[in-house]
């Protein structure tokens, strides 16, 4: 048992990878078991992630040296730099890992019936597993070049998945092309920044870079490059053009995973600005840049969403808008990082709100995309004007949609309210105007979702949808699981914040801990 625990960081990567390599072979023998095979593998991965979470939250960060003579031995004797790839999983990493594990597991379950009619299923499932692997790698790795490799795995897998339905029409390929260009540029700029770090310090481990960081001009250039491209991959506003296309053209289950994938980029953004640079950078400037990006994302996202006719495009714009809340919360934390008094009084609180919102957003936005997928599965359209009266036919979907919409609009007792409340309270102490904008955006979100609810679900039963039935059981199960998480988080936010979110925030803020875990000498 302890052996499994020691090797769990390797297992959580190797298990989905091995399954992905075997999926084409399994699919050749029996297409029926394929979906179940993948679901079981992702379920096991979720189980290992939960094991790791308990371990990390009780005993502190987890280290795994690949190929080392001992899993925890980071430095070779007599040398002061790590020479091997190290997985470095702390509170924040495992927090993101849990999101990835839950989301990809439910996506596999949902796909059991959602993707049944499509051809090339073994490829679909292999790509889903690879996408999950890439995200895990991005979140767990402590090595900056390794991060680049996993960023590429995640982006190539998501591009192929976005373009998966291009046999039916040209639009998915178009969205895939757009996303491919965006993600290749981001990955290459990350590679360039890796070169800048390596050229100056001759190390690739992030904790080691943080400890020797001099904040030269080259480091500033690397910071700007990294911030820009990671904000782009996270779908923040000035660079958000790929988001609605990619989210709306991908299959619904994949869209849910894509939301989590863009949050993995957001995680990397936070990791780099907090753990790599921390107070050596001008935290007030960078913090305000992130806050302004957040405010712009919030506002432009929601205004663009209101005018959309396509249900998935509308939700995609809302995803941009909700990304703004996370940037706002964490940006406030970054802006007051150098000021211990302010950090103690509201900075940590704001970051808790922002980080908690990441998980909440993954859950309710996933649920909303799944309900949109359920509507598409039964009606064959995503156009809101063509839908109507579906509440008569699809009871469960309607209930789940209401839960998701209430959560995204910040209505108690759902989880969106819990995290938004923390953000409002703490940001108000920092700057009241920002808090008011955030509340305004929330009201606009509610208005937009009332419109969707009205046009898709309410009204008289339409003639062409007379025979529409509830979606199959596996889809209902996936949606129900997400709805349960949403309600539970909404009812007991304090427990989650105390046990899961607070350690994540502290692991971001405390840079000395981060470097000391690798280099020793606390």
């Amino acid at each position, binding site marked *: 048992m302890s052996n499994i625990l020691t090797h769990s960081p390797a297992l959580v990567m190797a298990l989905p990878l091995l399954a992905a390599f075997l999926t084409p072979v399994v699919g050749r023998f029996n297409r029926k078991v394929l979906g179940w095979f993948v679901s079981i593998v992702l379920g096991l991965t979720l189980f290992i992630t939960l094991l790791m979470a308990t371990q990390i939250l009780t005993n502190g960060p987890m280290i795994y040296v690949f190929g080392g003579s001992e*899993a925890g031995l980071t430095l070779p004797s007599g040398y002061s730099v790590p020479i091997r790839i190290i997985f470095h999983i702390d509170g924040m990493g495992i927090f993101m890992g849990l999101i990835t594990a839950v989301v990809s597991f439910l996506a596999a379950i949902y796909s059991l019936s959602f993707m049944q009619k499509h051809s090339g299923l073994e490829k679909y499932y292999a790509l889903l597993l690879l996408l999950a692997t890439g995200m895990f790698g991005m979140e767990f790795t402590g090595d900056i070049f390794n991060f680049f490799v996993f960023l590429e795995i995640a982006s190539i897998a998501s591009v192929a998945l976005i373009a998966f339905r291009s046999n039916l029409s040209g639009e998915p390929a178009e969205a895939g092309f757009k996303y491919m260009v965006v993600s290749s540029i981001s990955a290459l700029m990350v590679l360039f920044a890796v070169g800048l770090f390596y050229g100056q310090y001759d190390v690739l481990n992030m904790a080691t870079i943080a400890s020797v960081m001099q904040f030269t001009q080259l480091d500033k250039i690397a910071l700007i490059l990294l911030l820009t491209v990671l904000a782009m991959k996270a779908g923040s506003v000035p660079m958000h053009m790929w988001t609605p296309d990619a989210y709306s053209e991908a299959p619904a289950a994949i869209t849910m995973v894509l939301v989590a994938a863009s949050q993995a980029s957001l995680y990397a953004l936070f990791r780099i600005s907090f753990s790599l640079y921390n107070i050596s950078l001008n935290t007030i400037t960078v913090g305000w840049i992130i806050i302004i990006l957040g405010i712009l994302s919030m506002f432009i996202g929601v205004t663009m969403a209101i005018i959309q006719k396509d249900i998935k495009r509308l939700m995609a714009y809302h995803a941009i808008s909700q990304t703004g809340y996370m940037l706002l919360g964490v940006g406030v934390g970054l802006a007051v990082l150098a000021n211990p008094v302010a950090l103690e009084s509201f900075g940590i609180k704001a970051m808790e709100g922002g980080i908690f919102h990441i998980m909440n957003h993954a859950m309710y936005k996933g649920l909303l995309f799944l309900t949109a997928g359920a509507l598409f599965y039964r009606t064959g359209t995503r156009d809101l004007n063509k839908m109507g009266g579906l509440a008569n036919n699809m009871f469960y979907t309607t209930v789940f949609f209401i839960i998701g919409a209430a959560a995204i609009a910040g209505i108690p007792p759902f989880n969106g309210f819990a995290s938004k409340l923390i953000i409002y309270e703490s940001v108000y102490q920092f700057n009241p105007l920002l808090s008011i904008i955030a509340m305004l955006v929330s009201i606009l979100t509610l208005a937009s979702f009332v419109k969707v609810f009205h046009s898709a679900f309410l009204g008289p039963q339409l003639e062409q949808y007379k025979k529409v039935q509830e979606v199959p059981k596996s889809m209902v199960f996936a949606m129900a699981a997400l709805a349960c998480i949403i309600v539970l988080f909404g009812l007991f936010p304090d427990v989650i914040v105390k046990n899961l979110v607070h350690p994540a925030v502290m692991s971001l803020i405390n840079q000395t801990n981060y470097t000391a875990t690798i280099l020793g000498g606390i």
Partner: protein
Amino acid sequence: MKEEMSRIVRTITTLIYGFIIVFGFYVIVHGHLTPGGGFQGGAIVASAFALLVVTFGNQGIKGFLQKDIFSLIESTGLVLFIVFAFFGLGVTFFYNIMANSGGLFGNSAIIGVNPGDLNTGGTIPIMNIAVGLEVFAALGVIILTMSAGSEITRKKENS
């Protein structure tokens, strides 16, 4: 565009492609001693297949190069690679258990400049071979798929 190239190109290709493949495998197997390795050698082997596809056209190689076999080789290579990484799990994932063990590929190297001994390196040569198989098969599948795909485009344009 004509499917096949001229007689000169076809003759030279049939003469030369075997040598390219052998050279590729040489580069793969000697990866731990000389410049090269799994990726480079795999790319060389795949270039032989690219040459064949260019020379004989997509129809000409149908019975000779098959995508399914390539896919199988690719999966085999990857599984071999990850399995040898798993063998180190007694210590850590990716631990080189066979280095300096005296068994297969287990000789210790002479420290410093030496003429090179093929039987060294532990899991490194095996992983080289695994990656070499994976790379040439993967590139082969890419070449075959894309050339078949471009043929569809060409047909569409002509009709």
